């Protein structure tokens, strides 16, 4: 049985993966596109956190809000002007553009901030003891924020009018537009939500780890794995898949070292082979 710290680590990584994966799932089920730049949006948010916290020494929550706002704006801009015009042309053009944008963002950040790994100052000091287990207050706060954000997302999707529109558009795009759901505006809202979730994930992880221009690709790949595991287009699947991948990377890493990456990837390949709809999804990419 690995120590409680490992499980807590799994919870933190798992919840950030849940946020990343939910954003990907929203984009897949509403716009029908795989947002390849998702990891770079995450990286952007991390860099903004560093800029605001370490350079300008402003409050953590201000930094988080700034990261969310800027990243959401960038995400919306990408979707509105670079991906949406190409979506009718099939799968390849938007994918190629999005993959090109990965390079643009990484190159741009390298040019302006350099390739160095940077530390983001921690949110708070202090250690909390619960019985035998001692955890840093910072990590506990991160877990609480993560759970709060996920509950918020649940409320947004399931209890609000916009959430209803999102679910309707995912299930029946044509019918929902007949009933007055403006798909363009919905795309913007969905993309802002997805990018904002990526920003929250980066904002929570940044004080614990470090930020650099290449930090986006690994969480992106892991989040993709979570999406496949849970089922493409299933939000519930993204939550469960994200948690499973999070625990495999930490608890699995505790037992078998670096080979855990292989285990994750092989599980994903097996899932695609034998159950392409994942744990909760349908074969068609629908929410």
């Amino acid at each position, binding site marked *: 049985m690995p120590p409680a710290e490992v499980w807590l680590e799994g919870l933190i990584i798992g919840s950030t993966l849940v946020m990343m994966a939910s954003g990907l799932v929203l984009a897949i089920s509403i716009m029908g596109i795989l947002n390849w730049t998702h990891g770079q949006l995450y990286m952007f948010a991390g860099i903004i956190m560093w800029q605001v916290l370490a350079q300008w020494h402003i409050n953590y929550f201000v930094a988080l809000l700034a990261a969310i706002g800027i990243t959401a704006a960038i995400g919306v801009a990408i979707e509105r002007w670079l991906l949406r015009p190409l979506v009718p042309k099939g799968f390849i053009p938007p994918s190629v553009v999005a993959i090109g944008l990965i390079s643009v963002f990484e190159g741009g950040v390298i040019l302006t901030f350099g390739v160095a790994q940077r530390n983001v100052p921690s949110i708070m000091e202090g250690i909390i003891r619960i019985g035998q287990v001692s955890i840093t207050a910072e990590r506990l706060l991160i877990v609480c924020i993560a759970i709060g954000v996920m509950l918020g997302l649940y409320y947004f999707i399931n209890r609000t009018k916009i959430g209803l529109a999102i679910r309707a558009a995912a299930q029946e795009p044509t019918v929902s537009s007949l009933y007055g759901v403006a798909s363009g505006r919905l795309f913007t809202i969905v993309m802002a939500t997805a990018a904002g979730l990526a920003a929250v994930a980066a904002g929570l992880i940044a004080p614990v780890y470090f930020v650099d221009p290449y930090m986006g690709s690994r969480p992106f790949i892991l989040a993709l794995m979570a999406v496949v595991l849970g089922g493409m287009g299933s939000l519930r699947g993204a939550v469960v898949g994200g948690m499973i991948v999070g625990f495999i990377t930490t608890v699995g890493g505790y037992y078998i070292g*670096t080979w855990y990456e292989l285990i994750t990837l092989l599980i994903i390949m097996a899932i695609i082979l034998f159950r392409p709809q994942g744990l909760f999804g349908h074969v068609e990419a629908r929410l």
Partner: protein
Amino acid sequence: MQTLQIRYRLKTSIPLLLVIIFACCVPLFTGNQALTLIIPALLWGVACMGLTLIARAGQVSMGQAGFMAIGAYSATLLALRVDVPFGLNILLGGIISGIVAFLIGRAVLRLGGMYFAIVTLAFGEVVRVIAINARNITNGVYGLTVPQPQISIGGYVIAFAVTKAAYYYLSLGLVIIAALIFWRLDVSRLGRVVRSISSTPELSQHLGIHVMKYRLIAFTVACTLTGVAGGVYCHFLAFMGPTVFVLSHSILILIMSAVGGLGSAVAGPILGAMILSPLGDYLRTVLVGARPLIFGGLVVIVMFFLPGGLVTIVDRIRSGGRRGTGARNAGLKNAVRNLVSK
């Protein structure tokens, strides 16, 4: 009619012959330094042709560097451990890469689209993780030193370690053979079927085309030649490690192909690789980060304003600046025509 055909053939083949003759003469008037820029460009060109064939079948592969790595590791290990002679080991490396591609393709090409892109992405990562962690086979992050071959032809010894020109001719030969194979595939029934699958999968399936079979053939052939290119590349570097072919190289291959033009099977990807690979090597020495920024920007601009890639510039000039040449015409009408003329 026949004279017209002959004249047409001459018109297309004479410039091609001139290009090949010119390419053969390149080492005569360039130094080793220029060749170290041109050789990778040629090898990326082979990988780009492979990716273009897959893209013309309507799929995006994010793991082409993984197949290069498989070919390269197989060639190196065969040469180091089993003493397979030079040339044969590269060929075998390509075949192993092709077998892996066949197995993956058999499993995932049925789903295609996003699933295929994700699985190829995961595959590239699997190769990297195995290369790093299987230390007793691949020597982990320290990598393997690739033995440099020596060939004697009629008493004249060519040492690949000394003369870069030997690698140049090897790569050039590979590009020509690969170009012939990809061109033949593209104009054959397979090429037409593959394009019709990409533009209208439902219609082609409805007309009784085994979509899966043709996608699988395209993917396997493409990855075999990509593996061969990887094998030559690691011999050229004299080193093979987990960092030689990574995800960013897969992205690079995709960018080169798209900038050159996914609309043509051979000319586009070769053009893209020949322009971007040396440019990238130059930019990397000038300013870190300039290469991804410029390449990414270039591919976005090309996809928006020149969807057929840089090769279509010539067509567009010839047609007096009218839009709609190249790949964009491959709509429903073309698909039907392709199918009817099979």
